[in-house]
């Protein structure tokens, strides 16, 4: 039996692609000077870090509760602000709603630009404008959430069942009525789960934002690292891990009930 008569008929092509991927990895490792030997040669450094890391400074825990609450608040406000602005605007980013390629194109372009700006750069920018503090963090997270949310939303709206829209049109409904009566019920439960998803991402992102002084647990993490207090870093990371674990669990629970 020849290969092309079996289910493996694409095998030569697939092997070729695999080969190309391997070559690409090797070439980029070479170009960036990635040296896996570093892992072994620097094992002493690693040992010191792990030594502290494995003995967490539990007493420090009481001092990171407030920053963590601040982080959670920032994530909540950021998520809400970002979603509230992204959700209505994303309808304009679909030809289904606008019926106009130019409008849709412009709205999408703006959304893509916003999404492309790296979060850290955005945070640095807001620090420069509004100074250090949670307001900066909230604004950064809001813009970040807007970027993700708008993209998820317009992709979602493009996939809906168009037939009820036709029915609404046939009874004489106007465009706003069509959106609210025929599109929103189709996507509302998915949008709710998207909001929870963005909230999860925001908690992770907000820890990083502390690096540029945007407030919350990240600030504490950054200073502990700067002081080589790996015992404290350890507590902070464990705490973040626990919080994300809990939030993931809660949002997973709600998302399952929503769909």
């Amino acid at each position, binding site marked *: 039996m020849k290969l092309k008569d079996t289910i493996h008929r694409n095998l030569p092509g697939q092997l070729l692609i695999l080969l190309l991927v391997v070559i690409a990895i090797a070439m980029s490792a070479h170009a960036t000077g990635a040296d896996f030997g570093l892992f072994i040669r620097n094992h002493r450094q690693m040992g010191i870090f792990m030594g502290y890391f494995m003995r967490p400074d539990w007493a420090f825990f009481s001092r990171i509760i407030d920053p963590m609450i601040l982080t959670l608040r920032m994530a909540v406000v950021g998520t809400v602000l970002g979603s509230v602005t992204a959700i209505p605007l994303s309808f304009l980013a679909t030809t289904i709603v606008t019926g106009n390629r130019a409008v849709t194109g412009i709205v999408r372009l703006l959304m893509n630009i916003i999404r492309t700006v790296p979060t850290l750069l955005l945070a640095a920018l807001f620090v420069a404008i509004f100074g250090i503090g949670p307001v900066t963090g909230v604004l950064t997270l809001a813009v970040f959430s807007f970027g993700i949310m708008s993209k998820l939303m317009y992709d979602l709206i493009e996939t809906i069942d168009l037939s009820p829209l036709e*029915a*609404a049109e046939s009874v004489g*409904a106007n465009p706003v009525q069509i959106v609210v009566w025929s599109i929103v019920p189709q996507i509302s439960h998915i949008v709710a789960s998207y909001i929870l998803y963005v909230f999860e991402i925001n908690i992770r992102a907000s820890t990083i934002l502390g690096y540029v002084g945007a407030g919350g647990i990240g600030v504490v993490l950054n200073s502990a690292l700067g002081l080589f207090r790996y015992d404290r870093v350890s507590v902070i990371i464990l705490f973040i891990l626990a919080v994300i674990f809990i939030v993931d669990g809660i949002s997973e629970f709600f998302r399952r009930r929503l769909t």
Partner: protein
Amino acid sequence: MIEFKDVSKKYPSGVMGLKGISLQIGDGEFVSIIGSSGAGKSTFLRSINRLNDITDGQIIIDGQSITAANKRQLRKLRRHIGMIFQTFNLVKKSTVQKNVLSGRLGYYSTFKSLIGWFSKKDYELVKDALERVGLSDKLHHRSDQLSGGQQQRVSIARTLVQQASIILADEPVASLDPITTQKIMADLRKINQELGKTVIVNLHSVELARKFSTRIIGLKSGEVVFDGSPVEATDEVLTRIYGEEIFKDGEDDA
């Protein structure tokens, strides 16, 4: 009364959907449109409520041109024209009540419909319409929990609350089994006879057209090739126009 005055529809691809159609459909008629796939049945029906724009001629409904209507006038005209679709076109996640009530949207301002400020009279209309199609007990069910036949009856109820004087049905039974098909067609006939509404149905099956309608219009390549009573639409006549093909279509899908 619906008047087609030399109506043509040319698609951007250059294909002619409709070719110089002129005819009148009087109030209270039950008209079946027959013809094979691609004959222009759907285009014909959808040009009546302007879900499809025509490229030439005029369509006049009760003395008012729907072809020349602006957006606002068009929405107003559409309130009087109900439509039933092959795929039911309900919002599946919404309840039966909400789907039927949506037939009233054309009568409400954006604001009122957004906050769901509907009159008591309209809720009564919904109740009555569901009673008429035998689905009173499904008021709060989600639409996707219903069978195909039930969903189609919900969409019939939607046209009833619309209080439309004309009901267009685009292949309303094409995705239903034979028994349900008979029931849906009987429902349409009842609405036609008891409420005096004009019903225009696209059908694949000549049998159904003969059994239920008072008038049959045959289309072929966008032209009217037959227009007469079911009695006149004999096997002989139809075979001469279409060939044997036309009688097999009832079993086809699209």
